[in-house]
């Protein structure tokens, strides 16, 4: 391991070290503020250390990790998202009688796992990252121990994630038994091989796809999503929706993305196309009749993962960049949405039912405006990040003539607009016929959350109006994937 490789892996080292430092600090003296300060400082240092990392050259740490500009970009995204989760979580936890400090510890560990996923190049590191992420998530989802829904969601996730991991492991073992190699790059060759390819290899790849699809929550591996989203504490929901999915998507985009033009073909391409179409349609259709905003956003996340798969299937340099842009836009938006919900929640309840948003526009116009912006961005209305993301995905798909996928995307996002509008309708309803369940419990938006929300709203508009800078960064960073 060369010095350069150590420097390149600094972000991972720093994040893990922060977790250790935090653990020791908790052992010495419990302090919520100190915990969040240490965690945020750790993330900031890790972000800075990314600047020292590879510029152009790629460093390989053993055969485990590949640290090139692509992984640096994704690590930056994941670290940033984790930082926002901390900002929202601080006040959320401060209002609750729990042990608060361990939350940051677990999130740091999960973030490390997600970053390992983004940088892994081999089955072992892939599985290591996945388990690091999952195990931390089991505890995080069930974090509020007094709430029954939390425990239920945690157990559900534990059982399903553990079984999907074992299926994934079996798939990887099958591939290893056939080729004798643990390299993730085999996925491309397996997926592009025609019908004459080895059955064992294909079966292994499909089983691996189960584990991957579970983490991404795409149809038909999506069953856990609404329950876990609903049951988990809001900051954890935000974390599941962003960091956990982002790391896995980084891995999929890197290793499944076809080098040759013409998009992802073969059996793998067909299966992924079916998954994408099913996710886009059923995600949006199932969300239509929900009355819980967390469940709505859970189903909408299924649909959004479907849109991301369209970019993956389109492939080529354009597809990779479009997928990355869409992912960033989605993460910024969904963080904003969950952040608003967190800021609106009181000490004993979460602002999750649509009813709790009735008349919000007239009582707290700024918060409602931010939430509306986020919903419109999810729906892909111009001037918001979501629109340009969708535009890039459409362009990538059109360049490869993936018309069926594109029409499904258009149709399903129109269906999606309906339930986003339902939330907006509730917010603009007249307050006199509002059921005010919040009452005196209504809290001011705390400072940390306000700063984070302002930043995210700014980002949504910035990415929606002036995408050039980020697009150039993405194109540079993803060039190595070609």
């Amino acid at each position, binding site marked *: 391991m060369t010095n350069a490789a150590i420097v390149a892996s600094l972000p991972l080292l720093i994040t893990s070290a922060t977790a250790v430092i935090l653990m020791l600090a908790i052992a010495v003296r419990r302090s919520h503020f100190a915990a969040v300060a240490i965690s945020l400082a750790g993330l900031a240092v890790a972000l800075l250390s990314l600047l020292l990392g590879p510029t152009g050259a790629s460093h390989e740490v053993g055969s485990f990790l590949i640290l090139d500009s692509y992984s640096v970009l994704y690590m930056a995204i994941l670290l940033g998202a984790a930082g926002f989760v901390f900002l929202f979580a601080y006040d959320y936890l401060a209002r609750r009688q729990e042990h608060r400090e361990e939350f940051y510890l677990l999130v740091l560990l999960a973030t490390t796992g997600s970053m390992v996923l983004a940088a892994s190049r081999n089955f072992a590191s892939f599985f290591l990252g996945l388990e690091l992420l999952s195990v931390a998530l089991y505890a995080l989802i069930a974090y509020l121990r007094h709430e029954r829904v939390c425990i239920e969601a945690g157990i559900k996730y534990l059982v399903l994630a553990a079984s999907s991991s074992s299926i994934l492991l079996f798939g990887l073992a099958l591939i290893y038994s056939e080729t004798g190699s643990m390299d993730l790059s085999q996925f491309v060759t397996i997926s592009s091989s025609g019908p004459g390819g080895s059955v064992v290899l294909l079966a292994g790849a499909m089983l691996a796809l189960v584990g991957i699809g579970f983490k991404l929550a795409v149809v038909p591996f999506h069953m856990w999503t609404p329950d876990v989203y609903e049951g988990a504490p809001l900051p954890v929901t935000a974390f599941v929706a962003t960091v956990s999915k982002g790391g896995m998507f980084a891995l999929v985009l890197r290793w499944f993305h076809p080098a040759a033009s013409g998009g992802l073909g073969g059996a793998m391409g067909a299966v992924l196309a079916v998954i994408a179409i099913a996710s886009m349609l059923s995600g949006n259709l199932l969300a239509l009749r929900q009355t819980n905003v967390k469940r709505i956003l859970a189903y909408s996340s299924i649909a959004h993962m479907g849109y991301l798969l369209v970019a993956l299937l389109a492939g080529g340099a354009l597809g990779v960049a479009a997928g990355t842009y869409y992912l960033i836009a989605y993460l910024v938006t969904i963080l904003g949405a969950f952040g608003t919900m967190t800021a609106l929640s009181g000490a004993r309840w979460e602002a999750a039912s649509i009813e709790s948003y009735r008349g919000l526009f007239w009582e707290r116009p700024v918060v409602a405006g931010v939430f509306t912006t986020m919903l419109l961005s999810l729906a892909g209305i111009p001037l918001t990040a979501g629109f340009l993301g969708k535009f890039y995905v*459409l362009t990538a798909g059109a360049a490869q003539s993936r018309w069926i996928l594109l029409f499904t995307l*258009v149709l399903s996002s*129109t269906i999606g607009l309906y339930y986003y509008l339902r939330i907006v309708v509730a917010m603009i309803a007249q307050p006199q016929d509002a059921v005010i369940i919040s009452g005196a419990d209504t809290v001011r938006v705390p400072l940390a959350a306000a700063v984070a929300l302002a930043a995210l709203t700014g980002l949504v508009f910035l990415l929606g109006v002036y995408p050039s800078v980020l697009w*150039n960064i993405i194109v540079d960073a993803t060039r190595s994937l070609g």
Partner: protein
Amino acid sequence: MILLSLIIVLIAGGVASWIVARRNVVAARWIAVASVVTDLAMSLGILAARAGASSSSRWFAEYDAAWIPQFGIRLHLAVDGLSLAMLLLTYFLGVMAVLASWTEIQERAGFFHFNLLWVLAGITGVFLSTDLFLFYLFWELMLVPMYFLIGIWGHERRIYASTKFFLFTQLSGLLMLIAIVALAVLHYQATGVYTFDYRQLLQTPMSPRVARLLMLGFLIAFAVKLPAFPFHTWLPDAHTEAPTAGSVVLAGLLLKTGAYGMIRFVLPIFPGPSRDIAPLMMTVGVVGILYGAVLAVGQTDLKRLVAYTSVSHMGFVLLGIFAGNQIALEGAVVQMISHGISTGALFMIAGLLQERMHTREISQMGGLWETMPALSGAGMVFAMASIGLPGLGDFVGEFLVLLGAYRASPKLTAFATLGLVVAALYGLRFVQGAFQGPNSHHWKLPDLRPREWTALGLLMICLVWIGLYPQPILRVVRPALSSSQQSTIAQEARR
């Protein structure tokens, strides 16, 4: 730069009136009027500058700046005769819309004016954009404030109407986005340059089959907005439930963006396929004329009646656009403008009646001439304009359309003329039911106030002016229309 400031004035005016309305609502209303009037003056300035200049270029003014260079997307605005005429209509009706809501909108007036001005900004952008990406952006952008206008200040079934309106236009708009992106990708594959520029995409070589499919993407979006016959179902709901200003903007301006899109994009970019589909579209237009008129006869809700007459009148526009000759096309443009004025005025009349009587049912009215002679008289004038009485604007448009369409298809034109007969039926039924006869409900209502007089009087003057002397409008729009046809011919020559 002046074109960009047209949009900025409205956006800034919207924000300003939202802020000011917290302290002083009347000042907010004046800010709204002032910003629209500023834009009206600026567009008249463009017109005057053009009249003074000797330039023979089709474009009167242009603004061009880089925006997303990676995909060749530019902030490219340009105005020619057609868009200038549409802009003048936009600002004229914009002032009317603000005046119409002066007493109607009391709650949250600041946010109302913010939305109203932002709709106008979106419409301005649609009429100005010559970059297709930018066009789509404004196309979608005018939906959101319109959605709020209907959803917050509308009548009883406002949520249903606004959601339906949004979903219809969103789906059709996304189909257009696919077509736009596909067009740009085709252009890229042929030339190696990404661009969304209107004038460059005009030159895109396409196989006839691809061109037909892409044209459908555009055509569906515009047909929904126009609305053409099978896609019209959002219109009666949205128009009926919207507040007066919303109805004026919807009927007067939003529908025109559909027709404008057909003239500006469908005809020149896809000359061949649009000629192939012309008989179908003309038939659809005639069906719309008859269907809208017949349904209008049966309505009891005044705003619904006017909404269905819009379907009928937009049928004439569709017929004119696809008749394939200059006269009919000019007729369609005149019809767009005069329909905007006359229908906008009818919605204002309906709004005034509802404000005074709290009902839109024609059966609840009757004999209103006795108590409100001025309002009733104005109502009759606009109803006559709507049924195409000679001397008023709509007649000129419909006559030119029929004249041109007769060359293309005498049979369809004969059916279209039947629409005028039915129009007389609904127009007279409205006037007789609402204004004439005995005042059996013993209404005692205040007549027009000076502000309302001014607004309706200005609309009337414009209608009479177009009806008697439409030449200035034709002179302004003719170069734009003929050059869109010339580009058609040029493309044929290349084939």
